[in-house]
């Protein structure tokens, strides 16, 4: 059995979110020399740079389990709409790595690492638990809980009493809420602060206020779709940047050649194509 071409392509697209994910698709990983950078080293570098915890998943020994895990992770990445799933990828740097390189203990296949790569705690999440893509699946709750414990301890050790990045911005989002262009612009700017360990993501996990939680979830969605270097289009494709709306554009006017939207690869279009492609016929 080998992973399907479609799944492999998805893995390549999703790679910025899960280091080493595309390696899961290889039928004999060890027999093929890697042509790219070492995913585990890249993940450690990202953790250090972002001061983020890491979630390291041991690459299963059997091909069948590797394929299952790759497919399950792809499903999470490609079809995730629930903030519970999206936030999980925003809260930590993810990596799939050989078990021998991870500080695992008996029976564990996932390990939570601190930003310098030291073991925090291990988890037993069998591959079967990653299947069945629903936001409330057991493994998602386990991973959030582990990140919560880490984050709670980290915050307990914090000394600064100053407002954190994102604190005042979140207050402004909650206070506003009017669907104006300015509001959406504020959402876009504030979403950039939804990084691992951020005030916004922690507030989303802990606030009892539904209004605040809803605002956090909207920011999480924006953070997920926000164009940045981690959210690539397929290889060789560069996103078209529209500096201004083309509503007033007509033939012969500035920007008229982009009026029909042709050949303008955009993430929005990819989402809609996927939505339409997967939407069942009436």
């Amino acid at each position: 059995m080998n992973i399907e071409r479609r799944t492999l392509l998805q893995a390549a697209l999703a790679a910025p979110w899960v280091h080493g994910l595309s390696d899961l698709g290889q039928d004999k990983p060890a027999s093929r020399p890697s042509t790219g950078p070492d995913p585990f080293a890249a993940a450690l570098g990202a953790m250090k740079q972002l001061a983020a915890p890491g979630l390291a998943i041991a690459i299963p020994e059997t091909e069948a389990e590797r394929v299952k895990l790759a497919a399950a992770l792809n499903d999470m990445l490609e079809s995730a709409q629930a903030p519970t799933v999206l936030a999980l990828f925003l809260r930590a740097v993810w990596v799939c790595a050989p078990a021998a390189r991870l500080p695992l203990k008996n029976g564990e296949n996932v390990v939570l690492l601190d930003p310098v790569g030291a073991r925090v705690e291990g988890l037993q999440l069998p591959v079967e638990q990653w299947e069945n893509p629903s936001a409330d699946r057991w493994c998602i709750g386990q991973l959030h809980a582990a990140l919560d414990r880490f984050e709670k301890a980290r915050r307990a050790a914090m000394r600064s009493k100053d407002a954190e990045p994102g604190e005042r911005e979140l207050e402004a989002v909650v206070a506003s809420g009017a669907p104006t262009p300015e509001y959406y612009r504020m959402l876009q700017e504030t979403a950039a602060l939804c990084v691992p360990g951020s005030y916004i993501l922690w507030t989303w996990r802990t606030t009892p206020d539904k209004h605040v939680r809803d605002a956090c979830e909207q920011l999480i969605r924006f953070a997920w779709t926000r164009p940045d270097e981690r959210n690539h289009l397929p290889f060789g494709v560069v996103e078209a940047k529209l500096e201004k709306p083309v509503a007033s554009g007509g033939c012969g006017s500035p920007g008229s050649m982009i009026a029909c939207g042709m050949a303008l690869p955009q993430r929005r279009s990819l989402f809609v194509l996927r939505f339409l492609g997967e939407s069942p016929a009436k």
Partner: protein
Amino acid sequence: MLSEVQRVLLAACRARDPFAVLQASLASPDLTTDERAWLASIDADGLRVTALIVTKLRFERIVNGDERLGQRFDADPEAFARAFQRYSEEVAPSFIFPGEEAEAFERWERTTGGSS
């Protein structure tokens, strides 16, 4: 006649199952024998991809034609896509410029309640 061929193809491209709509339209008495044979030879997957491209272009006209609509999409892509899907099925593409398509989408939402 040509206008009937165009009508059949347009209806197919707006449907969720373009090939089924195309097949159902072949009985139209306004099609000539040659036109019917030509339409019947269309590849199902090819028609589906064509319909997706047409629909994608309409979507891009809307979100690029009105910045507010693009921002609404960014805020909740699935809800917007669901509303857009209904719009593309219910409103025939008859607009030249993106701004007109965006206005038509908003008008349709006001009239129908959008994604509800």
